[in-house]
């Protein structure tokens, strides 16, 4: 299958010859150096590598929260470089689900309200939003915690709520940045089970950055980055 064919299919990711530089004072810091990567639809990819290797930067480019200095990033059939700031925000809300290391739940909103947040950007009615959010919580096994605030939940439960928030809009791609990095081993296993389920049963394309070899072992494919270049 060619690069273009892959990119044209929903859920697929194509990164072609991408460079990313950061300017710090007068210094230009090279983070990604001509990197290319193809991720087919329904793939579960683990990105590994030492700190500062560019894993999170690559993930951010794929998720559309950062822009490449040069090169092309095509996700779910959309060339992200062609989108304006506002278009990119809209695109993210429809195509990408985020799972963060520290869950990033809004502390003043309860579980169901947190899950409902991305749905505020859709045209769904209040009732439909609430129903979908509750369904997502049910899928992650937290229907009985819907009224709990983040401070009333364990780390594992918080991450489950975050996963429910990531899947509630039914995005094509899920990006996870160290999703088990802040969890004990049992909670980590549960979260990885859940992520694996979304890949296996719901066909989500998952790109996960991790330092943990046990987490990476759950993925179909493992790629290693070093100094902004894929080494394996």
């Amino acid at each position, binding site marked *: 299958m060619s690069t273009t064919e892959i990119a044209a299919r929903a859920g697929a990711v194509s990164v072609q010859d991408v460079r990313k530089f950061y300017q710090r004072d007068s210094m230009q810091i090279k983070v990604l150096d001509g990197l290319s990567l193809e991720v087919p639809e329904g793939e579960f990819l683990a990105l590994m590598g030492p700190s500062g290797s560019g894993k999170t*930067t690559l993930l*951010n480019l794929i*998720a559309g*929260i*950062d822009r490449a200095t040069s090169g092309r990033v095509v996700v779910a059939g959309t060339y992200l470089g062609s989108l304006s*700031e*506002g278009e990119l*925000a*809209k695109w*993210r*809300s*429809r195509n990408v689900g*985020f799972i*963060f290391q*520290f869950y*990033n739940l*809004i*502390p*003043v*909103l309860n579980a169901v309200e947190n899950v409902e*947040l*991305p749905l*505020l*950007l859709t045209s769904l009615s209040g009732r439909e939003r609430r129903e979908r959010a509750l369904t997502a919580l049910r899928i992650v096994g937290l229907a009985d915690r819907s009224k709990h605030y983040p401070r009333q939940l364990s780390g594992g439960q918080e991450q489950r709520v975050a996963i429910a*928030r990531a899947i509630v809009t039914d995005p094509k791609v899920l990006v996870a940045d160290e999703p088990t990095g802040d969890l004990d081993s049992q909670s980590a296993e549960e979260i990885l089970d859940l992520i694996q389920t979304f890949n296996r049963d719901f066909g989500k394309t998952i790109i996960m950055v991790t330092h943990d070899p046990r987490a990476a072992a759950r993925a179909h494919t493992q790629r290693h980055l070093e100094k902004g270049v894929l080494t394996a």
Partner: protein
Amino acid sequence: MALPLSYNVRNLRQRWKVTLLAIFGIGLVVAVFVTLLSMESGFRIALRSTGSPLNGIVTQRGSMSELTSWMNIADADVFMVDPRVARDSNGKAMASCEVVILANRPRKSDNQPANITFRGVTPMAFKVRNNLKVVEGRSFTPGLYEVIVGERIADRVQGLDVGSVLNVQKKDWKVVGLFVAEGGSFESEIWGDYDAMAPAIRRNGGCESVTVRLQDPGTLAAFDKDLRANPRVQLQMDSEPKYYENLAGPTAAALLGLAAFVAVVMGIGAVFGAMNTMYAIVSQRTREIGTLRALGFSRFSILFSFVLESVLLALIGGALGCLAAFTMNGYTAGTGNTNSFSELAFAFKLTPALLIFGMVFAVVMGFVGGMLPAFRAASMPITRALREA
């Protein structure tokens, strides 16, 4: 779609300590500002509600107030016979010839002397000014050294209660009653009989002013023009309410200026206070902002949300400030009138317009104070915001 309002309300509630500080700052500014304006408004109203729009007041041409005016009875007769002056049921011209001096009495609050207008009136004065009402005691008896005192000045100045005796121009005047005049400046005066008072204060044979009831108030301008054109007399006519309102001019302007000055100085402080609070809120919620942006919320919805939060905070502060100012509503104060040199007692008057003005001022402070921090929140790169602890 914007973030829900409950998100802002809960955020304010969760950070209640820092929120309270900002609310207190804005509330204080609004309270002081609205109180000052209500003082100015009360002062203006006291003078505006003095006098009837049906009346004209005749004084010596060129005089700024009754105190610097004088006319002989013969001069007064010139216009009293004019058909434009209304007649009572007995056919008498409804015109009140009055004499005025200032009496000096100590204030109750600080024992400092206050000038009080001491006015000698004819019985016609009560027909021309029919809003006067004796609320305690009785009216003075013509020919006797008796006076009635405006209720507001009796509250502020020593020795003006019913039954008291005050010595003015070497005569003892007995206070026989208290009167009200719909909050007008007459409530800051002492009234006695013209025939008793004029000789006692050496103002025989004339008046400082004559207040006339006009058949048609629309004729006032022409009447004034005729008086000014008459070579036999040196007189002028003003509408009675306008005359008293003009007396307020410099003092009211000074009060308004003070209110504006205080509002600007304190307002700048409050804006910085609100801004500081919002900056603190933004820095505490940097990762939250990054998350919201990553989820797809636009820069504008973040900007709007933070400005809204700041405005919400200011609205609470504004409401509390207005409530605090409300406690001063009706409070009686007094000031020297720069034109009449007399003490004018007035009540702070908090009008709905002033409350709205106070709230608008609060919203402006909240908006300005929230705009820069909100802009910072909205323009932050998502990746940087997500890295923040």
